[in-house]
């Protein structure tokens, strides 16, 4: 149990198949998870490797709620530092992104750091006219910005503040790593970004991402157009620890349509008479060549890589309080895309994001849960589709990858 938790907490005997609602609202759990999950032995997405091409390029982001600066250093390497001046704790970088020619200077007292976070100079270090200034015992090298370990996987840069996190490739593992690699085939090119403020705990969105069961039930657009149904061939890959997952769907309807229609006939989401007037935006090509038209992948705790037809995006789930989350989207193509492919990606971006035909509901459903659980600290969600384990399954009619998330989260939290 995390230190300092006032109310005793006993996880239900059903294990990962039950999740007490308290974990989505308790401020003490939120505070403990900041230290144990986000500042703990986990890797978190920071930036695309080629998003900061020139030495001096920088971007600010977050590891959990901790503000972070990511730079391209003079040495050509990516560096990441906590965005907090070693002097008095002020934000060193205020802009979302930019370029600097002379390192990073804190606006408060003009302490200056290089692009790797080393303290280079302190204003009036020797005082004025022999008076004031820093004592002789003050050493610049002892007051750099706190640095993160960074590592690159398939053009995605991750960072961690923990010495205990294993190397990134080992953390992600071969299976999930291969599924990242199949999407990140070339040099990414950013098509644009957007962000959503969700009125729910960050874990409710991560559960939603890992929940392969809901997709064709909540998102009626998918079902109606047979873009994805649970009866379409596909499955879910899950890391052994449960931490990461990838759900995948094959494009062609390999199952039997009549059986599928019958299975769905009782469900609200099937509108047989609903047809698009201009379905060109769904024209997609099998750019990877393996027949998988949809892959949703997560790396614990808060990174998502999406391939929905030709719409590719990375999503970062940032906690902003026990009941608020920012969901950041970066939509990408690749440098060798022709104009038709870029247009296709822009058209298919209509499927996702805040106004997405198949993701609009995801922005709201976490908030619906958050609004439903006050007073239900001792009650639990039931996560039993596909059993109580979190092994990979050749179907998406399962909640195995949601259980996987809790299997990875609970030991970190001591719950």
């Amino acid at each position, binding site marked *: 149990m995390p230190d300092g938790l006032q109310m005793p907490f006993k996880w239900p005997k059903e294990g990962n198949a039950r999740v007490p609602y308290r974990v989505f609202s308790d401020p003490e759990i939120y505070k403990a998870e900041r230290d144990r999950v986000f500042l703990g032995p986990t890797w978190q997405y920071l930036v695309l490797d080629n998003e900061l091409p020139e030495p001096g390029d920088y971007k600010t982001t977050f590891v959990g709620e901790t503000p972070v600066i990511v730079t391209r250093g003079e040495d050509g390497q990516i560096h990441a530092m906590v965005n907090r001046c070693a002097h008095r704790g002020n934000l060193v970088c205020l802009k*979302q992104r930019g370029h600097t020619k002379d390192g990073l200077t804190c606006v408060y007292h003009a302490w200056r750091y290089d692009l790797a976070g080393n303290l280079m100079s302190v204003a009036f270090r020797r005082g004025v006219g022999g008076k004031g200034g820093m004592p002789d015992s003050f050493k610049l090298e002892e007051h750099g910005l706190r640095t993160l370990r960074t590592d690159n996987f398939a053009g995605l840069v991750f960072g961690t503040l923990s010495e205990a996190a294993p190397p990134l490739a080992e953390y992600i593992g071969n299976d999930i790593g291969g599924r990242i690699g199949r999407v990140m085939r070339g040099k990414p090119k*950013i*098509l*644009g*970004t*957007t*962000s*959503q*403020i*969700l*009125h729910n705990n960050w874990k409710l969105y991560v559960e939603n991402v890992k929940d392969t069961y809901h997709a064709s039930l*909540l998102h*009626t*657009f998918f079902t*109606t157009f047979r873009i994805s149904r649970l009866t379409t061939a596909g499955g879910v890959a899950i890391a052994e620890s449960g931490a990461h997952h990838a759900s995948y769907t094959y494009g062609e309807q390999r199952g039997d349509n009549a059986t599928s229609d019958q299975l769905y006939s009782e469900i609200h989401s099937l*509108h047989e008479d*609903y047809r*698009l*007037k*201009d*379905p*060109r*935006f769904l024209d997609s090509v099998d750019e990877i060549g393996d027949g998988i038209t949809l892959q949703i992948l997560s790396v614990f705790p808060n990174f998502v890589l999406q391939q929905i037809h030709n719409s590719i995006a990375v999503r970062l789930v940032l906690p902003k309080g026990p009941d608020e989350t*920012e969901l950041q989207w970066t*939509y990408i193509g690749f440098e060798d895309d022709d104009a038709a492919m*870029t247009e296709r990606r*822009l*058209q298919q*971006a*209509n499927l996702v*994001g*805040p*106004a997405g*035909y198949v993701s*609009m*509901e995801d*922005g*709201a459903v976490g*908030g619906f849960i958050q609004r439903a659980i006050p007073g239900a600290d001792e009650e639990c969600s039931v996560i039993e589709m596909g059993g109580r384990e979190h092994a990979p399954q050749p179907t998406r009619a399962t909640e195995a990858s949601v259980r996987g998330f809790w299997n990875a989260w609970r030991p970190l939290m001591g719950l």
Partner: protein
Amino acid sequence: MDLAEISRRIEIEALYADYAACLDNDALERWPDFFTEVCHYRVTSAENYEAGLPLGIIYATSQDMLRDRVSALREANIYEPQRYRHLISGIAIGGKNGGALDVTANFLVVRTMQDGSMSLFAAGRYVDRIQRSESGWKFAQKIAVLDSRQIDTLLAIPL
């Protein structure tokens, strides 16, 4: 300003008033009629727009795609009942572009949810191109450029 220009300005102001009323009064079925058959409608952020990034939060290149957006909102998508109130001001009529006119305008949108909670949902400007047709002015292009990169929860009703 000569009389022709004054009368054109009044027509264009009426176009924006009518456009706002259509969205705010839940007459979404009429919304695609404000556009030319081939058109460009996009909702984006100032951040994307100023960086020259082409992404749209909504992105459509035909009137039929706008009709599909409306039928999806009516038939497929699930979202809580809500209404918008558009305040459109500062309509600036720019230069002629072929047979079309470039127009920019500011917008503020207050969103009211079914429980009565209200928020300033969106602020930004339209970067538009309008064309005169037999049935009046139509948008050949409408780009809603949001000042903020953040959308609260979701964007269902168009801007």
